């Protein structure tokens, strides 16, 4: 069983959803990212999503874009991001790391070499935003060979007819982009989720995590009622920008409590 599958199996037994916070690599520097990775794992993160900075992140909102730019200014490269994960992994064998980013840096690195090096660094899954199912054969074979889960995005625009095709070859969990829009903007309501999640559930046995627009412990709790995981990104980046890493860990702790309390309430 992959590390990601193991986490979801454990949470299912506990009867709760996963909290999946996000760290943009090297925002604003490498040391802060490492502090956040370690601290998040200690403060209730069940899985951590790590952003790989790219100059042209076309599906991300202004917050993640700016974080990526700061990361690049601080010298982030794919190699550097993998080394960051490897350093985290040296002390933590249980928290899955999922890399999120865009295709071009991966192509530039070489897909085969990247999948190999990512697995070696202790990465568990990949979310490649601009790699739809129609183009996924570019990455699936190498990801599979190296035991990396390829996590697929599902959007409100994904039709029922299209769902099986999109889910083909995906593993780990399904990432439901709960709004039509960019990261960090609108928030899906409980009604939206009550309508959308069962639709996806009918098409897959994989756990479903919800992202885009999840900001507060209350929203995370709402998501946790319907889905198997809540992904929080922009809100944490803003906290980091406004305050510091300690404040981000405080927020992660509160979000974790929100997720844990969701089904008990």
């Amino acid at each position: 069983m992959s590390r990601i599958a193991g986490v979801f199996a454990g949470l299912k037994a506990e009867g709760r959803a996963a909290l999946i916070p996000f760290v943009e690599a090297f925002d604003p520097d490498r040391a802060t990212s490492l502090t956040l990775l370690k601290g998040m794992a200690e403060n209730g993160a069940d899985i951590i999503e790590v952003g790989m900075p790219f100059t042209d992140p076309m599906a991300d909102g202004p917050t993640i874009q700016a974080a990526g730019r700061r990361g690049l200014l601080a010298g982030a490269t794919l190699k550097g991001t993998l080394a960051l994960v490897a350093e985290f992994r040296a002390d933590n064998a249980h928290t899955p790391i999922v890399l999120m980013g865009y295709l071009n840096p991966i192509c530039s690195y070489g897909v085969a070499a990247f999948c190999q090096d990512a697995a070696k660094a202790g990465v568990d899954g990949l979310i490649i935003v601009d790699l739809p199912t129609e183009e996924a054969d570019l990455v699936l074979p190498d990801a599979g060979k190296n035991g990396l889960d390829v996590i697929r995005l599902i959007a409100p625009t994904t039709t029922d007819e299209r769902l099986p095709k999109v889910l083909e070859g995906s593993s780990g969990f399904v990432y439901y982009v709960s709004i039509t829009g960019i990261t960090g903007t609108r928030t899906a309501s409980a009604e939206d989720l009550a309508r959308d999640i069962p639709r996806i559930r009918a098409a897959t046995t994989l756990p479903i995590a919800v992202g885009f627009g999840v900001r507060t412990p209350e929203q995370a709790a709402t998501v946790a009622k319907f889905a198997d995981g809540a992904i929080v990104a922009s809100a944490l980046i803003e906290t980091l920008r406004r305050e510091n890493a300690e404040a981000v860990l405080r927020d992660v702790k509160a979000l974790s409590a929100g997720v844990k309390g969701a089904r008990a309430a």
Partner: protein
Amino acid sequence: MDSVLPNSLRNAPDARGRFGEFGGRYVAETLMPLILELEAAYEAAKADPAFQTELEYYLKHYVGRPSPLWRAERLSKELGGAKIYFKREELNHTGAHKINNCLGQILLAKRMGKTRIIAETGAGQHGVATATVCALFGLPCTIYMGAVDVERQKPNVFRMKLLGAEVVPVSSGSATLKDAMNDALRDWVANVRDTFYIIGTSAGPHPYPAMVRDFQCVIGNEAREQLMEAEGRLPDIAIACVGGGSNAIGLFHPFLDEETVKLIGVEAAGKGLETHEHAASLNKGRPGVLHGNRTYLLQDEDGQIIEAHSISAGLDYPGIGPEHSWLHDIKRVEYVGVTDAEALAAFRLCTRTEGIIPALESSHAIAHVAKIAGHMDKDQIILLNLSGRGDKDIFAVAQHLGVEL
């Protein structure tokens, strides 16, 4: 005349939207269903004679097509070699080839029941053309433009606003064309249901590169017919500037299967191909994925996109349409570079000898003609796409010449 052979170079792209290894559909899942819907709608429109008739009506009566084919005698004489013909796209309504594509796409948008139009623009030419067709059809229109470009292209910003468009300055990233395209894509992701995105060049996810090319092929089809009438034969060379590459592919495509016609695309070499300040993705870039398609890109070792540079804002883009990448790899088209300085000299040469002020973009193609025409025989023919007029550029040119307006 337009029949396409099974082994023709005109059959691309394939079902996955690929020209060889280039093109494709590298977009987020949110957009994917929309791209597929667009592809189906475009295929249906293409096969519908009523759609073609409607497009032809607007091209004739609104744009003023066919655009003339002009024998540039004084320029030919001055260069002392081949006979040079200009395909005069600069005489189109709004002053460039861009309107051909905008009309095609807005008719398709109407057909699909879309009620809002968005577009990206660099120099503002595509933005003005889009705002124009939106005014014509009474559709609300939002144009994304890099904040840097908004500052250096004020007349076009004002034109777009007069035409009723909302111009959104984009300050993310490097605040130029590629960032405007990122933000237009973000808008589309957020407003997928009612919005149609009119992409201005033959790039982006499938079906855009093929669709934009098809709408621009009117250039090459007309030029071919006009040249046959004037000279009774095909040109020896057809030449055009390439940024994203829509005017070039529109000129080249009808000649792709004609082995005797040499095709030349002219990239912006900016301050020189040996410097880092140019926009020559084919000559100096390598394949990668940006804005929905696999193509040659200016990028660093880590796959981060590098800012392009050209005196001409219309060529100032770090990528290029995927069909050009393919035509480059199979060596059907030769892609060369022309510097800012060479383009400026050609701008003056054309203005002085022909009484035509060319766009700085088109001046790149003229500059290469100036390099080769003298080495050709007098009965050889060069067909050059004069893709746009240079009125928009007089401020930039004056600045480079040290003249205060």
